């Protein structure tokens, strides 16, 4: 059994929380005491049925205002798969929270209200989903009950969205007419839409293919910690502990340490008491090399035949996440996997108007602004372009004054 991580995105009131509640409810994933608490709550739908949205709105302020402020994670499983849902806020003010939820997702469900169709927020959410590199999208056209389950309305929205998907570069979009409130096509196939012969949302989520890239071309291993017991019997033991972020490594592979450039070969791979011949993306391992070379936290080991880009001047997309605007004169920290170094945003090239997708001049980068920049780092960074290898292409910016994470960076290329 594997795990599918997905997020839900949509404007306020499109029905994200209701859809998640419905998924949990109809797949029998809500426990009795939680259901009791739901029933006891005084937030009810107009017809007196329980409001499923309360299942995910976890903070007091959220329940008071009836909106989602921060990402809520929900867990459920069926016979086929485990699911981790990130219910993300739709409001522009909370874009950074949506980006948080999107960064770890394999799939995005984007909701639109069938009465409204594709609107400005749909553009923004689709753009963000594409920016964060989520390959698989479900466009859930919700509230079909409020448009008489009209096939024509559905077709019109699908046609509009295809244009948008082309523009933002989303290739795998699956279209689905649903009513989260009534339960049509969420877990059970709808009888109200005989014109729709496709599978339900849950069935799609259970069967969508989830492969990981384990090619040697992308073999990347950021070192987190050096294990050195320094006991009598393990006097010479020196293992590099970390997680294979992408690709795969085998014993006897030739590896290069970056940024230093030293090379060696893998003599042993350890996973606690086991010694596998190969370690693939996602595995936490301890690696041993044939030669004694200087390696510490922050270094990255790669397959010597396929090296990433190494630079101190990098072109990247930036999503700004702080209320204090970006200051191009200030020295920030950048954290890329286990490596932290100082940096400056040397140049801002343009901003993207995320509602119209037009490029604009970028004199300033304020909260939730997204655009292209050139970043200059104190130490060289060994990275892959984000679109080729997400695991080695993303980094965060930390403000040295507040220690807060203020930016998300998607590396694109070496800047010349």
């Amino acid at each position, binding site marked *: 059994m594997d795990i599918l991580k997905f997020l839900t995105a949509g404007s306020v009131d499109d029905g994200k929380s209701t859809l998640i509640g419905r998924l949990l409810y109809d797949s029998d994933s809500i426990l009795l005491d939680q259901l009791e608490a739901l029933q006891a709550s005084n937030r009810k739908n107009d017809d007196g049925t329980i409001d499923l949205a309360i299942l995910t709105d976890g903070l007091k302020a959220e329940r008071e205002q009836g909106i989602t402020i921060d990402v809520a994670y929900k867990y459920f499983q069926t016979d086929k798969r485990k699911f981790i849902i990130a219910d993300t806020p739709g409001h522009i003010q909370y874009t950074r929270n949506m980006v948080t939820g999107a960064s770890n997702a394999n799939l995005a469900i984007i909701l639109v209200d069938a009465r409204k169709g594709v609107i400005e927020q749909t553009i923004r959410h689709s753009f963000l989903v594409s920016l964060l590199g989520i390959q698989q999208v479900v466009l859930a056209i919700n509230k079909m009950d409020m448009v008489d389950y009209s096939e024509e309305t559905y077709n019109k929205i699908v046609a509009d969205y295809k244009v948008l998907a082309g523009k933002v570069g989303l290739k795998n979009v699956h279209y689905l007419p649903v009513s989260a409130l009534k339960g049509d096509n969420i877990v059970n196939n709808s009888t109200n839409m005989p014109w729709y012969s496709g599978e339900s949302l849950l069935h799609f989520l259970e069967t969508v293919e989830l492969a*990981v*890239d384990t090619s040697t071309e992308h073999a990347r291993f950021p070192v987190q910690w050096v*294990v050195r017991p320094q006991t009598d019997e393990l006097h010479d*033991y020196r293992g590099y502990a970390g997680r294979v972020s992408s690709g795969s490594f085998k014993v006897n592979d030739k590896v290069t340490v970056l940024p230093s450039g030293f090379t060696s070969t893998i003599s042993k791979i350890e996973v606690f008491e086991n010694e596998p011949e190969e370690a693939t993306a996602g595995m936490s391992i301890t690696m041993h090399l044939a030669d004694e070379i200087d390696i510490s936290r922050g270094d990255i080991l790669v397959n010597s035949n396929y090296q990433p880009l190494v630079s101190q001047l990098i072109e990247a997309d930036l999503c700004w996440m702080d209320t204090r605007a970006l200051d191009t004169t200030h020295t920030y920290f950048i954290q890329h996997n286990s490596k932290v170094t100082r940096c400056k945003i040397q140049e801002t090239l343009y901003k993207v108007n995320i509602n119209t997708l037009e490029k604009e001049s970028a004199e300033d980068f304020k909260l939730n602004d997204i655009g292209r920049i050139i970043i200059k780092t104190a130490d060289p960074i060994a990275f892959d372009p984000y679109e080729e290898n997400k*695991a080695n292409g993303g980094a*965060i910016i930390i403000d040295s004054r507040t220690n807060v994470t203020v930016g998300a960076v998607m590396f694109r290329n070496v800047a010349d």
Partner: protein
Amino acid sequence: MSKHNQLDYLDQLEAEAIHILREVAGQFERPALLFSGGKDSITLVRLAEKAFRPGKFPFPLVHIDTGHNFVETIEYRDAMVKRLGERLIVGNVQDSIDQGKVVEQKGKNASRNALQTVTLLDTIAEHKFDACIGGARRDEEKARAKERIFSVRDEFGQWDPKRQRPELWDVYNGKIHKGENVRVFPISNWTELDVWNYIRRENIELPSIYFAHERDTIIRNGQLMAANEVLNMDADDVIERRTVRFRTVGDMTCTAAVASDAFLIDDIIDEISASKISERGARMDDKVSEAAMEDRKKGGYF
């Protein structure tokens, strides 16, 4: 491009947790692992072995002892520490009471559960811990469902849900100011069932009270409680011997038992898979109000 299926889910969750533990080791000067004696923190200890052996743990284990623990929990703790050869630090709620920092509650529903926050914060301050690893999971409760994996607490130990840092990919920002500390939750993405399946897979030993056994019980507020001296009992309380087990291991005053014939781990997994009550449903402390957990977390509770 060669492709593989994803790792099996338990391997995936394990690898993620190990990665988080190693980030703590790499980023902090004085981390600690908060050990409650419950299955979640026992799982953390197992994960720490996988992350750092054959080296030593880069942190001590810290137990906040309410003085109202089940004896089985304390026996288990001491045996485990001995087997591991790691350091254990105990913060005693009784000390906080004796020092007059907290006042013992009175009455039938008295519990030391709320008092342990003070002892925890004092212990953190005394040892200058900058990161505390805990076994909380997001599936436990709604406020927890919102918390980051690296969760920054201010000088007063408070969690501010509206000022959480963005947390992207698996890049964890552990930078803090003096006096602040970070609570780290490596098994955030595990469910109760995942923990049990992992315990079974790894053959991890647990305190005996997790398994069905006979003991004297009373019914309090509709729940089965272990009858014992720390529960303020009176003539109305009818003591009855029942076959029960505990789903969480907390303070004896607020941890309810369930009637159960689950003597083996397989029985427990069957029971939970079929059960329709959440594990926190067996804790009276969360029942107080809809926002009980959020309020306690804001005040520094784990």
